[in-house]
């Protein structure tokens, strides 16, 4: 714990404010001893003078030195603030732990009272108590202390609720440990740290609140003086000597800010600090892989003529800046999609399949960078930037994302979210667009679409939302639907409905589909052709019907073998592809799969194989394509996997 506090002091803000807090405390201790006499010395020759060499901040109505009075006032100001803070914390603790101490029913009453009290601003509560306890220093301490209590009580309630449900506290309760003992031994030590941090913040607040009350004339009364009192007197003479208001004002400001900001930086330092970064990738050391990187592969055999193609991608690369140079999760991907074709993209998470889809759709945001030798959608070059083809992309390329629960704007009605597309890209009026939205919802088999269009996303079930997402895609007349794991977040029964829907849309309108999935079965069922991705590259490109038995790449074959079927022996552990996926920040030289491949030899580990056609409509990137694997047919496990 001490080390964590030290870390706070090592930040610039923490250090500065920490030193300031210490300085204010030291000042409060020594100032009355050193300068008490000078602050009270009456100089009748110099009444209400401005700043001079003798009196740096001028004098007040009795000729007393305002600079020294401002220094000496630190003692009383700080004392009052600290006493009030302690009072607030103690009362807050009592109120906040009441549900634990006095039983459920009474506790609930206290909680309700606290909830009502926190709705009122502290100053109002302070004024209320100031009336009750009377004008003066004691009344002000009670007023500010009690005014701070409800918010502390609320804080304590929250903290206690977090601790009280912990296992060992429940255990202690079951064991018959007394309430007070549970509170002192188990609960308080666990909430001490946030309490202390908040008390520091509250001390700053109390300091400023005292200044406020004294400024109203309700706090400290003559002949005592704190900063607020000096300010109150100073503002009356602000035209004669502005420094009389300025000096105590500055003093209370510095002290208040010191406590407040110190509390803030401690709170931030002890809590979890969030570092903004690239969310898609682990941001650890990016070692750039050497050979094989630039020697990219193109499978040029039997390319269909460009007019048949909806999408034509050559040597697509995606990179993100990393701590040690760029991270390259997609490293030269080449493929094309014909009109009406269903192309599946499979691979483990981190294989770059989703980023490939986002890159094609021009949805990679800075600092991500997309680079391609060719990126044509319906004959238009998308590399000109997403703005250039906004309307084309908005109406002709539909996206379906993985999580339907989070992919809709929760604050807007479904109909409006669909209609937006038509308003922006097809020049429809809002009314026409809404009618189209209802029609599209019907087309994707959302029941009662008129009613559903006026509802919010949270009123839809997951499967219905995903269908609505597809409906949003067909607001225009898409020639390509890119679906990124569209069924992963759904129940198995609903998965099939969504897949059937995609299928029927394809059948009706000759729409091409790029289906990204980690699930070989789904892809094999829906798609005509399958791309298998590994470590940011395509390792195999094959017709879907070849998946079972025709696949040449050891990785594809391992993926297929890992799928459980009706004959899988449930007594055995489910098969997995052994080894771990490649970290995109640390791609090895040679074939990226070599480390997990039973066929790998020194050649594989040195030179990355290019994607090359091997017949039967299959292209594969492997030096040992189609060689026997030594696959254990019973479990589907690669028997030699551990030897590398």
């Amino acid at each position: 714990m001490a080390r964590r506090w030290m870390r706070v002091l090592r930040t610039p803000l923490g250090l500065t404010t920490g030193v300031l807090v210490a300085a204010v405390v030291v000042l409060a201790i020594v100032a009355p001893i050193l300068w008490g006499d000078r602050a009270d010395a009456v100089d009748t020759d110099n009444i209400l003078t401005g700043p001079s060499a003798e009196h740096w901040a001028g004098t007040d109505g009795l000729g007393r030195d305002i600079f020294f009075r401002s220094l000496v006032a630190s003692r009383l100001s700080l004392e009052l603030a600290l006493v009030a803070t302690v009072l607030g914390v103690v009362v807050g603790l009592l109120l906040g732990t009441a549900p634990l101490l006095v039983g459920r029913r009474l506790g609930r009453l206290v909680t309700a009272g606290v909830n009502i009290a926190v709705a009122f601003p502290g100053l109002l509560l302070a004024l209320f108590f100031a009336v009750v306890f009377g004008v003066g220093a004691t009344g002000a301490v009670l007023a500010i202390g009690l005014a701070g209590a409800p918010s502390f009580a609320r804080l304590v309630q929250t903290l206690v609720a977090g601790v009280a449900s912990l296992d060992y506290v429940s255990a202690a309760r079951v064991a018959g440990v007394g309430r007070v003992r549970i509170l002192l031994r188990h609960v308080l030590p666990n909430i001490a740290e946030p309490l202390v941090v908040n008390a520091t913040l509250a001390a700053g607040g109390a300091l400023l609140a005292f200044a406020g009350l004294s400024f109203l004339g309700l706090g400290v009364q003559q002949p005592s003086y704190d900063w607020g009192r000096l300010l109150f007197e100073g503002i009356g003479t602000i035209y004669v000597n502005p420094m009389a208001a300025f000096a105590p004002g500055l003093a209370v400001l510095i002290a208040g800010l010191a406590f407040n900001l110190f509390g803030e930086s401690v709170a931030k330092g002890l809590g979890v600090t969030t570092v903004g970064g690239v969310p898609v990738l682990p941001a650890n050391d990016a070692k750039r892989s050497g050979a094989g990187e630039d020697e990219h592969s193109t499978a040029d055999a039997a390319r269909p003529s460009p007019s048949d193609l909806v999408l034509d991608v050559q040597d697509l690369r995606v990179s993100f800046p990393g701590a040690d140079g760029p991270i390259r999760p997609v490293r030269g991907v080449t493929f094309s999609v014909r009109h009406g074709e269903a192309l599946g993209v499979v691979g483990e998470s981190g294989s770059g399949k989703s980023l490939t889809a986002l890159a094609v759709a021009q949805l990679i945001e800075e600092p991500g960078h997309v680079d391609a030798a060719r990126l044509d959608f319906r004959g238009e070059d998308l590399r000109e930037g997403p703005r250039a083809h906004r309307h084309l992309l908005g109406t002709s390329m539909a996206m379906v994302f993985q999580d339907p629960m989070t992919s809709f704007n929760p604050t807007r009605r479904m109909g409006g979210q669909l209609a937006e597309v038509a308003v922006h890209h097809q020049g429809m009026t809002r009314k026409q667009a809404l009618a189209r939205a209802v029609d599209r919802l019907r087309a994707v088999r959302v029941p009662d679409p008129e009613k559903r269009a006026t509802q919010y996303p949270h009123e839809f079930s997951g499967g219905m939302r995903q269908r609505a997402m597809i409906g949003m895609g067909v607001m225009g007349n898409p020639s390509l639907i890119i679906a990124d794991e569209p069924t992963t977040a759904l129940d198995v029964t609903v998965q099939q409905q969504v897949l059937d829907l995609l299928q029927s849309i394809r059948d009706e309108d000759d729409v091409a589909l790029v289906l990204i999935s980690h699930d070989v079965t789904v892809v094999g069922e829906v798609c005509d052709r399958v791309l298998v991705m590994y470590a940011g590259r395509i390792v195999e490109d094959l017709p879907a019907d070849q998946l079972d038995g025709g696949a040449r790449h050891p990785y594809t074959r391992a993926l297929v073998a890992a799928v459980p079927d009706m004959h899988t022996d449930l007594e055995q552990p489910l098969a997995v592809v052994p080894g771990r996926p490649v970290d995109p920040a640390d791609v090895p030289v040679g074939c990226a799969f070599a480390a997990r491949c039973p066929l790998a030899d020194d050649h594989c580990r040195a030179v990355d194989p290019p994607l090359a056609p091997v017949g039967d409509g299959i292209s594969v990137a492997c030096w040992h394509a189609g060689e026997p694997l030594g696959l254990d047919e019973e479990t589907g496990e690669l028997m030699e996997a551990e030897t590398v």
Partner: protein
Amino acid sequence: MGPVSGVLSHRWVRFAVRRLGRLLVSLAVLLTASFLMIHLIPGDPVRGALGPTAPAALVEARRESLGLNDPLWLQYWHYLQGVFTGDFGTSLTSQLPVSDIISQRLPATLTLAIIAFAVAVVVAVPLGVLMGVVTRRGRGRRSELAFTTTSVVLGTIPDFLIGVGLVYVFGVNLGWLPVAGNATPDAYVLPVIALAVGPAVILARIIRVEMVAVLEADFVRTARAKRLPSRTIYLGHALPNALTAALTICGLLLGSLVAGTVLVENVFAWPGLGRTIAQSILSKDYPVVQAIVLVYGIGVLLANTVVDIVLALLDPRSMIAED
């Protein structure tokens, strides 16, 4: 809306009942507290108000006229009756009806608070959105640091100190703007700034943080996939989601702003309730204090209620998420 309104109104009714219930309970607590205030004061409040030299007969007569000799429950009943008929008694010092004092002073305070709040929101929303967009996905680290530091410091300075600083710079030094009263429109400038700075920077900070978080959300990617213009994505899709958290804070800010007028009015000699309550507390004019505390309290409660309703309109989930 047709068939939908049935379902919708059902939920709205439940929300309204629950919210109204909370408002009424809070009001009851507030009324009781303001009534009890005068009875919680140690010693005899009338003796305190009139001073130790006042003759006993006068104190007794004043006690009688205030009804302080009645049993507590009867006093409470009379107090409630008074409040609901707009009769708050008479001032101990000026002998004027308290309701007259309130109706005279309230408009100045209300205008000040409302203008200041409007200014704070009008400044904070665009500033917060802009900073959110600039600093999204870990960009603009320097702007973020500069903005956060400035806003934390500005947000911590109490409004009356800002007021004193403004009086010093613009009133005393430059002589550009009036520093007292509300006679002319330009007299509003300094008090409004003093009140609005704190809430504005706090709100802008929250909106920035929320925007940064919302811009990472999946539905923003969906909006981008729909190829909507950036303006629509930021203002139409991201902002409403960023505002829900900001609005919750708005309620608290509005409340503290209402209370903040007390101090700021005293800096600028503003002829509102804030000056009156400070003077009345000093002169122990309890009926006036009681009534003004009640007015401030009601103001805060109404502000919170309005914010909750706006919140529900903006984000219907909050109706369910509540309690």
